[in-house]
């Protein structure tokens, strides 16, 4: 298995439960962000990153990740991680940082942080973006590569989906306009396995807000563009289960490696991935039928078995991490036909479905009861005293890939083995200073030349320490030098979020 860099960006939903509460969700997001930086967990940006990202809109954290506001949402981007255990620990460190901020502000009973991707009343959607560093030889101009990847992504939802009540039918090209008057989908669909399936109208496209695609084709490597490509995916759901997050990222990384090796099979290509995304998500008989490009009918489960067998052939034994992914993948494909109860704690849509069914049975409700939407939300509540998912961790039913101690450590210490390590060192030194400019691919202090961190696999830690020694104290940081101002956004790295 090739060395890989992973990252996850999470847009949190904010539920203001108390009608008398003084702030709305957008203001709560801003206050939480400010509180985290007041706690000295990071250094706020001093410069414009984009026209909608003014100074102070967000900043990098001492753990190498990033916290910021994006389109009214509080968003956390994990630091670059070189393995799945780190990735899960840093993803959950972000959850912990924002939840603790909420609790320390004394708002945890009035406000909930919800790690999901859809407002079930308005059907507004917001994302969980995955980032994978691949070699530049992963060709985007080869359409079959992208189609094989799309076919994998559409079928992986059978174990990666976070589940949701109901359905929606947004206008395919203008979902900001609201929704079609045709509510028949919502009437027909009680529950589906993916939160994002209804919001993905394209197979390939480069936009990230509207017209979302199964494979986002934006080419923004945030690293040396002659060596690397960053695959940035927005098709997946935010997972509560550590197992589901690890399996989602791990299987996708293996699929990319099969494509890089030329071992992926064009026979896996579906005839219509966008249609399959929805039909699989909405099929509560769990048949998950799909039609391949050659016209043959099969099932998502069968296709996933085929990809797994190929991955075993080419990648088994190549690394401990590859072996864990292959074993976890096989276990979940084996258990899927047994029904949702066999998957509780490993597959979010299944755990949530089981809870909802038990609650309906207990209370004598049917799927049309509007209160079930509130239960759906509560599954994703980050507050461990209230959120439903946490019950599965309490009983030991939720598979853990990390530990609470590792998560606590990951709030303030960057991961090893990537440039996040050096960035964490830098952020610690910059707190309380002015006159710096920092981005995923490097930084600049005062009038010095930019310090570039083009290789995400290099920590740059010692180089940054030496650089900072030279900069202080006779060359204090000076804010005036780098106030680019509105209309002149600095574009060292370009992206708002996304670690490569």
């Amino acid at each position: 298995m090739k060395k890989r860099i992973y990252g996850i960006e999470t847009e949190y939903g904010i539920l203001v439960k108390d009608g008398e509460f003084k702030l709305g969700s957008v203001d709560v997001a801003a206050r939480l962000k400010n509180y985290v930086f007041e706690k000295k967990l990071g250094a706020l940006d001093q410069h414009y990153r984009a026209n909608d990202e003014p100074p102070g809109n967000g900043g990098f954290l001492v753990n190498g990740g990033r916290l910021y506001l994006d389109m009214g949402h509080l968003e956390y981007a994990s630091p670059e991680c070189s393995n799945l255990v780190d990735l899960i620990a840093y993803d959950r460190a972000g959850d912990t940082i924002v939840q603790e901020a909420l609790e320390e502000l004394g708002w945890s009973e009035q406000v909930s942080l919800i790690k999901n991707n859809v407002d079930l009343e308005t059907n507004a959607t917001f994302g969980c973006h995955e980032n994978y560093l691949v070699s530049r030889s992963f060709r985007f101009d080869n359409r079959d590569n992208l189609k094989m990847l799309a076919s994998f992504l559409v079928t992986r939802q059978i174990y990666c989906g976070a589940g949701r009540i109901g359905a929606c039918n947004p206008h395919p090209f203008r979902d900001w306009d609201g929704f079609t008057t045709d509510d028949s989908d919502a009437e027909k669909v009680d529950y589906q396995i993916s939160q994002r399936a209804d919001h993905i109208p394209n197979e390939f496209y480069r936009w990230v807000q509207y017209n979302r695609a199964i494979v986002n084709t934006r080419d923004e490597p945030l690293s040396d563009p002659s060596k690397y490509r960053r695959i940035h995916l927005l098709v997946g759901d935010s997972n509560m289960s550590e197992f589901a997050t690890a399996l989602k990222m791990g299987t996708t990384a293996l699929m990319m490696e099969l494509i890089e090796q030329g071992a992926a099979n064009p026979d896996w290509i579906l005839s219509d991935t966008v249609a399959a995304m929805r039909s699989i998500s909405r099929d509560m008989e769990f048949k998950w039928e799909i039609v391949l490009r050659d016209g043959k009918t099969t099932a998502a489960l069968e296709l996933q078995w085929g990809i797994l067998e190929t991955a075993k052939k080419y990648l088994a034994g190549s690394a401990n991490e590859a072996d864990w992914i292959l074993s976890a993948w096989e276990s979940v494909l084996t258990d899927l036909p047994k029904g949702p109860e066999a998957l509780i704690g490993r597959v979010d849509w299944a755990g949530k479905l089981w809870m909802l069914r038990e609650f309906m049975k207990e209370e004598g409700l049917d799927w049309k009861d509007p209160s079930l939407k509130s239960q759906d939300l509560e599954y994703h509540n980050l507050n461990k005293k209230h959120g439903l998912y946490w019950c599965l961790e309490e009983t030991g039913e939720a598979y853990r890939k990390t530990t609470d101690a590792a998560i606590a450590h990951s709030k303030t210490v960057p991961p090893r083995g990537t440039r996040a390590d050096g960035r964490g060192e830098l952020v610690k030194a910059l707190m309380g200073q002015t006159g710096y400019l920092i981005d995923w691919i490097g930084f600049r202090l005062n009038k010095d030349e930019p310090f570039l961190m083009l290789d995400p696999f290099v920590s740059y830690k010692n180089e940054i320490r030496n650089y900072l020694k030279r900069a202080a104290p006779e060359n204090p940081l000076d804010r005036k030098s780098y106030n680019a101002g509105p209309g002149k956004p600095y574009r060292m790295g370009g992206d708002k979020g996304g670690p490569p």
Partner: protein
Amino acid sequence: MDMTDPLRREEKKESAPDRHDSGPTRPDVSRPGRDNILKRMKRVDPKQSEKYKQRTGQ
């Protein structure tokens, strides 16, 4: 015991109605923590989804 032993013959019985009119019931599959989960679910504000009001993001 011999295969033709009269003791092995199936005893004929009149069919008896199921004690439940609605047909076979689901097995009682109780899981650890089920009661605790249901307790939490009963405490959820049934209208909280109406208060969520999120903007579309990315």
